[in-house]
């Protein structure tokens, strides 16, 4: 027994075991210090309905609402017949309409239910008309038949800011231009400079720092200082959101961009053809 304990082999084994245990202890300590969870890319699914163009003129042709009250003209300062209904969005009790005076058809106003326009209070929205009240009487404002191909886009309002402009006819972007830019992206950065703007840790949007005068981007109505916050109804809260739009741009026939300009939301619509 004495001989075994004194043997050099046992001494070596003991030392090796000690070293093994020490190594294990050191690594257990390290394991204790190191993180135990992996980092995965979190992508937020967008449940907002994608932007779609709606041709209201087609809706008018197909649907005829029977229960609508015939327009009644009363002697008021401003007659209901002097108004033009240019667009509507929403249901009977919730939504907005775009309305203008016939004498100034391009000067549109957005009226929500319960709001007053020229002395008439918007009561409800039907499929092809809007019902106003004044003096306890109902007045129905119907769509004027539109030319084929023209349309008015549905308009949404932000809770914080009002839409500044609602273009009824979009700018046009050619697919050839998009193809040229995608082949040589350096062209894009020669004409426009964009950087992210953060609110805390979250991306608020993408700011246009520089835009070359006379460039295609400038012609499209973008301006230096604009903060792009939405594209096709998708809030741009990450580079991924922006790149998803960029990657699929060839599949789109229209793109809607919402920019924050002078603290007001401005909607820009482009037709891709």
């Amino acid at each position: 027994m004495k001989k075994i304990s004194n043997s050099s082999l046992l001494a070596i084994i003991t030392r090796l075991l000690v070293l093994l245990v020490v190594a294990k202890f050191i690594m257990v300590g390290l394991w204790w210090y190191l993180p135990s969870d992996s980092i995965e890319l979190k992508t937020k699914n967008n449940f907002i309905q994608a932007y779609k163009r709606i041709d209201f003129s087609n809706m008018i042709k197909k649907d005829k609402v029977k229960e609508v009250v015939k327009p009644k003209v009363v002697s008021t300062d401003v007659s209901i017949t002097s108004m033009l209904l240019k667009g509507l969005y929403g249901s009977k009790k919730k939504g907005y309409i775009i309305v203008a005076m016939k004498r100034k058809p391009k000067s549109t106003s957005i009226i929500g239910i319960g709001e007053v326009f020229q002395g008439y209070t918007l009561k409800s929205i039907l499929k092809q008309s809007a019902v106003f009240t004044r003096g306890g009487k109902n007045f129905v404002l119907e769509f004027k038949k539109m030319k084929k191909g023209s349309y008015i886009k549905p308009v949404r309002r932000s809770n914080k800011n009002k839409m500044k402009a609602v273009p009824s006819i979009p700018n046009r972007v050619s697919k050839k231009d998009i193809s040229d830019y995608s082949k040589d992206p350096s062209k894009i950065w020669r004409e426009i400079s964009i950087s992210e703007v953060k609110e805390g840790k979250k991306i608020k949007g993408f700011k246009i720092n520089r835009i070359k005068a006379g460039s295609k981007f400038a012609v499209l109505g973008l301006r230096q200082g604009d903060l792009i916050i939405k594209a096709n109804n998708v809030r741009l809260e990450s580079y991924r959101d922006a790149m998803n739009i960029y990657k699929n741009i060839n599949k789109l026939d229209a793109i809607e961009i919402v920019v924050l300009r002078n603290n007001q939301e401005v909607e820009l619509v482009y037709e891709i053809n």
Partner: protein
Amino acid sequence: MVKMMKFFSYSIFFIVMLIYFMPKVNAYYFLENELKKHEVIISGEEFTDTGYSLVINHPTLSLKSIDTAKAGVVDVKIYALYNSINISEIYLSSMASTFIPLKIQNLNISYSIIDPLNINGVAYGEFGEIRAKFDLMKMAARVILSPSKLMLKKYTKTLRNFKKSKSGEYIYEKNI
């Protein structure tokens, strides 16, 4: 002399045991946390701790939340005196298709005690072959590209960022 040999042998054994017991997956998580600070995220990966190396299968690299590259197998070896990362079958995102061919067959990055002041890299794929060296003292990178026919034909704009040497290689240098 015998004592020296014994000490050397025990030291080797201790280092081997340290490597074997190293919590490689957790060390990888630590690396992921560090990369996250630079908005680089590696996700979708599967791990195999082989004892002496960490094998990561099918990772996806995202930069600023954009999927940038996908790899087949990443083999990480940390042996203190020699460390290497070998990545095979890298597919870059289609967004990079205007700059570079998308498939990289293999990328190897290594750091060895024999060349302690440099980190070396070798990659080959549809673009040709790249040999890179990062000088840790000067904090300078030097990339030498031997372009493929495809690279020379279709990606001339990318090659403009390189300087052409007399031997026909393309050199890119940058101080960080």
